[in-house]
């Protein structure tokens, strides 16, 4: 059995690791450092950590001032507040200036659980994907969170890294992480399941079940949504009967839209979207919510069967 890890724990530890070797790394948080785990960095490097209280707009614009002086700035809060509350600051003062600012947001998606709708960001990828210069990574598990954070630290310009709240099972045998290069986790010529974040695990389970029915599904971990690995999307579009896009996010503006856009312009094929359909979140346990919002492996399986029918 693979181990289950908090992506946030890995993020916090990776920040400390980076902070040791790079004196220009500065970390900001808005009263959620114990949840986002930037508290690890705060403890080790108090002179390079700033808590701004419950004031995300200020935090984002401060990051720009720091970056203009040569700092690599990691900014953390919940996905809802990083992307929604401070969107203007992210657009006009971070991305327009193309600054070295890495927004690492936790608590994305419905798996936030009991806190309910106000804390469940289902539109954050869409909001970030609209902005030029922004790169976006949705790591699928703990170890990939480390890869993503290191890649962001070593690559110029603004990043959005999306993390969840609960522990996630580590996806085995993913191969090397490369920014902008999707990972083929399973080969299959009948259909392609393309997923990011926690949905990668669900897609792998769905593929396993589909195999029992004699359907060979490819599983792709599309961890980087910008820049998008168009090559692999088009490859599976051509080699299979269609694509199931799986994300813990609205079906508008996120992973599904990223795939749609490439496919429509180059090689139209059938796409079925597994994601949140025009709804807000609500309270509940993560597993219950995944079921309620049709985000489980059996929903992916059904989507695949519908597509192939």
């Amino acid at each position: 059995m693979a181990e289950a890890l908090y992506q946030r724990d890995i993020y916090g530890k990776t920040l400390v690791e980076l902070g040791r070797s790079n004196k220009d790394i500065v970390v900001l948080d808005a009263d959620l450092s114990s949840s986002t785990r930037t508290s690890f960095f705060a403890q080790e490097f108090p002179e390079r950590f700033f808590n701004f209280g419950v004031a995300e707009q200020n935090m984002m614009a401060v990051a720009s001032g720091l970056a203009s002086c040569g700092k690599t700035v990691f900014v953390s809060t919940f996905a809802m507040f990083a992307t929604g509350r401070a969107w203007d600051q992210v657009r006009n003062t971070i991305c327009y200036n193309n600054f070295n600012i890495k927004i690492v947001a936790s608590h994305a998606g419905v798996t936030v659980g009991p806190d309910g709708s106000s804390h469940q960001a289902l539109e954050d990828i869409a909001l970030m994907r609209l902005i030029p210069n922004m790169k976006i990574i949705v790591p699928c598990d703990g170890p990939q969170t480390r890869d993503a954070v290191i890649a962001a630290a070593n690559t110029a310009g603004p990043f959005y890294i999306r993390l969840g709240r609960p522990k996630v099972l580590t996806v085995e045998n993913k191969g090397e992480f490369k920014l902008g290069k999707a990972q083929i986790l399973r080969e299959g010529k009948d259909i392609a399941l393309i997923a990011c974040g926690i949905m990668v695990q669900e897609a792998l389970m769905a593929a396993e079940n589909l195999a029992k029915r004699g359907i060979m599904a490819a599983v792709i971990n599309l961890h980087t949504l910008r820049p998008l690995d168009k090559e692999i999307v088009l490859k599976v579009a051509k080699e299979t009967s269609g694509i199931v896009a799986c994300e813990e996010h609205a079906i508008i503006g996120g992973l599904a839209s990223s795939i749609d856009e490439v496919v429509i312009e180059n090689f139209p094929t059938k796409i079925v979207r597994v994601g949140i359909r025009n709804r807000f979140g609500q309270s509940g346990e993560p597993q219950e919510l995944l079921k309620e919002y049709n985000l489980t492996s059996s929903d992916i399986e059904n989507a695949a069967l519908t597509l192939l029918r």
Partner: protein
Amino acid sequence: MQYNDHKIKELEEKAKRIRRLIIQMLAKAGSGHPGGSLSATDLITVLYFSVLRHDPKNPNWPERDRFHMSKGHCCPLWYAVLAESGYFPLEKLWTLRQLGSILQGHPDRRTPGVDVASGSLGQGLSVALGMSLAGKIDHNDYRVYVLLGDGEIQEGNIWEAAMAASHYKCDNLCAILDYNGFQIDGKVKEIMNLEPLVAKWQAFGWHTIEIDGHNIKEILSAYEEAKNIKEKPTIIIAHTIKGKGVSFMENIVDFHGRAPTKEEAEQALKELE
């Protein structure tokens, strides 16, 4: 503090020249914001030509004092002082707001001397705070100056930054408020009253200095006082006149965001001779 009269006279002349450049630039561009550019001219002229530690030939000098124009729509003023300082050739001023120009309609990093873009109001005090914190981390003794508009400080982001700057004891940070009393829709006190303003900034933990924003001596002495304040940020609340220096623009809200016509520009330049 005593300032010699020659120096004062020189700065007054410089400010007049900057005002002329602003009028010429805006008339050529055919759009832009004269009112708030003219009201802050004395404040920013004194800053660039008497206070700021900078080297126009080396705009990225790490030790330089930082300036950020949070009320970005008044960039004609910024462009004029940058050109006059030697950051780029004066002729560039006549390309303001044109396609491909280094002088965009709002401040932009493609202009030598501009570190951070602005235009969406209310974010510049935070940007300046970030610059201030970077200086503290690096033990670099540069100072950070930021120009705010009075309408602009109706933004909530400003007060988030105000709280944080005093929390982090940013005594290397000096905000300058161009309190000209007008915003696009009319008088500030009628649109959204800011008073009691000094009390507000003091309540947020700032050292406040109130001056006549067109009196060169008072401006010089305010910057000097700010340098000597320890453990807290300073705001210079400068009472100014919107459109200052051009009789038919003074306190006329229409000139917040309308460029002078050719005839108006000629008239204005006569007054500024």
